[in-house]
């Protein structure tokens, strides 16, 4: 589904990714771990199309299309979703309006008719219940004044609503207490399917206690320096990142 070949990216002429390779197939859950500054979040944002990153080499194919050629909204419409580490506040933009516009844009791209107000309300209430989100938050401005946990829940609500084919979660576990983490993990687990893939970007192994990955990759110096199964995450938890960075440099 997603093929990343020798991806090289820089920001303000500073190389951030230096030849990253990754293959993600349908139904797979990949965890990308690594120390701070290793390029994990940059990788997630480059996939989603955030400005400010210059791709200097390599390619990314998503279902046999050149992903890097597509504008941000087109990537979303083709089924790519990025849950942000710091979800953006949109003062004055109603969460309901945001969710409806978004869902209808994605539905239009899938060739499905737009949901009318009543049908949408039914769907969104149902999904909000699934992620344990207070209906009150639907009426407020998007993320404005939400707590850290509420913002992350709102991301998972969007994930549940938009039903992407590839979901990238950028440090979704950061800043969450154990209850909120469980809600996020339950939300993700409920959405796991043979057609849907996940990339979990995380610094800590903790999230992987709740969402079991098929593959674990370690990113260091802008490249994947080691891949393995979930036991690699446990080893990282025990030994830290130092030994891998050291091995990679050697």
């Amino acid at each position, binding site marked *: 589904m997603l093929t990343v070949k020798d991806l090289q990216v820089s920001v303000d002429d500073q190389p951030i990714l230096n030849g990253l390779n990754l293959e993600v197939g349908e139904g797979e859950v990949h965890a990308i771990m690594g120390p701070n500054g290793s390029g994990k979040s940059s990788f997630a944002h480059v996939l*989603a*199309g*955030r*400005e400010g990153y210059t791709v200097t080499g390599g390619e990314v194919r998503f279902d046999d299309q050149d992903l890097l050629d597509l*504008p*941000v*909204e087109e*990537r*979303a*419409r083709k089924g790519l*979703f*990025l849950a*942000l580490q710091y*979800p*953006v506040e*949109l*003062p*004055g*933009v109603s969460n309901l*309006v*945001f969710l409806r*516009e*978004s869902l209808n*844009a*994605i539905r239009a*791209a899938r060739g499905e008719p737009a949901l009318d107000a009543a049908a949408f309300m039914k769907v969104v209430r149902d999904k909000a219940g699934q992620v344990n989100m207070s209906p009150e938050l639907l009426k407020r*401005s998007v993320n404005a004044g939400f707590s850290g946990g509420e913002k992350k829940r709102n991301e998972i609500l*969007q994930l549940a609503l*938009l039903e992407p084919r590839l979901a990238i979660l950028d440090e979704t576990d950061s800043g969450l207490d154990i209850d909120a983490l469980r809600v996020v993990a339950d939300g993700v687990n409920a959405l796991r399917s043979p057609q849907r893939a996940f990339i979990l970007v995380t610094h800590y192994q903790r999230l992987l206690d709740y969402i079991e990955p098929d593959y674990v990759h370690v990113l260091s110096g802008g490249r994947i320096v080691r891949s393995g199964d979930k036991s690699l995450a446990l080893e990282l938890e025990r030994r830290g990142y130092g030994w891998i960075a050291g091995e990679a440099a050697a």
Partner: protein
Amino acid sequence: MNAMLEPVERYRRLIDAVAPSLPGGAAGWLMSQRARATEHFVRQGFPTRKDEAWRYTSLERVLDQAWAPNADPALQPAADIAAFHLAKDAVARLVFINGRCLPGLSSLSGLPAGLQVGSLHSALKQRPERLAPWLGQAAQASVSSFTALNTALIDDGAWVHVAAGTKLAGPVELLYLSTGPETTVAHPRNLVVLEDGAEATVVEHYASLDATACFTNSLTEVLLGAGAQLEHARLQDESAAARHISNVFVRQGQSSHYRAVGVSLGGLWSRSEYHNRMQQTQARCEIDGLYIAGDAQLTDVHLDIGHAVPACTSRERFKGILLGRGRAVFDGRIRVEVDAQKTDAQLANDNLMLSRQAEVDTKPQLEIFADDVKCSHGTTVGQLEPAQLFYLRSRGIGADDARRMLCLGFATDVLQACSVDGFRARVESRLQQRLAAGAVIGNSGE
């Protein structure tokens, strides 16, 4: 200065020509108001950019035409004007064309007890003494040549009186339509009086029936008795060729509450002034405003909020959206006089620049002569946040739609200050239309 003399002379002749036909000719108090205003206008002339209040605003586009009144009482709009109605639950509606009230298009039947609404022209013709306690009491004709001109030409407009203790169930809607021929001018004069404890909502809506260049010089006087509460929503939605100046004068009694929402969308050149005097303690004044200026447009807002006595509160918040080569001016002044201890006043102006060619001059001013007060002001000039745009687009929403959503979001808190659903809906849809002119916002600098 010499260049300005010619229009002054033109208006002086106009005043002389229409004076005999103005209503209330037998009322000495009214005649002397008109005469003083005329004298002031002729002596003062039009302001230039050397006048502080006009520093950023050139009058060229107002003085470049030989405006003439054309308020034919027989004038009827060709099209159905129901599309201009904003308040579905209005308890009364007055419709004006080129400044003249048209009773046939107005709805004044079944007025609730305690409410009097009608044409100022008729009221001055029939019983001018009825208006003597109020007309000209809040407005200072000397504020500018436009207020002087309006006063010298007091003729028609809305007359709204709400008796003590009366609480209206729905808004009083005032609709001012302008139409050709080219260079038509109107000077609507409105008088809104709420006696002690009265509660009302008044909607003023200025719109054009066609694209001809018309000039509106409106003046609204608001007098609030003790404990009176007025919501005053004002929408200037005239054609792209229109010139528009409005002056709102408010005089507030003890514990009265004045709540205004002023929106300026149309016009080639427009200026909106609010002059508020809190003359009795515990009064509260809130003014929220929204303006849009696109290509060729100049939109100007002036606030003059006066705290003369202790313990009054004022909140002014104006937001501007600038597109293309639009220009805006915001000049907001709060004056806290020496006796006005315990004043609580806040002034804010935020501008959203959607193009690099747009320009705004913003000048908030606090003049404080009392020492125990809580006052603040703040101004921002910013652009759409790239992070916000990215967020919306990353959810499948197209770039233009994302910009529109963020602009509407920017305006939301101002609009929510208005309780009239139809007013908010109209402004929102007009905003959408303006922003949908994709080319205007397409070059937002990405």
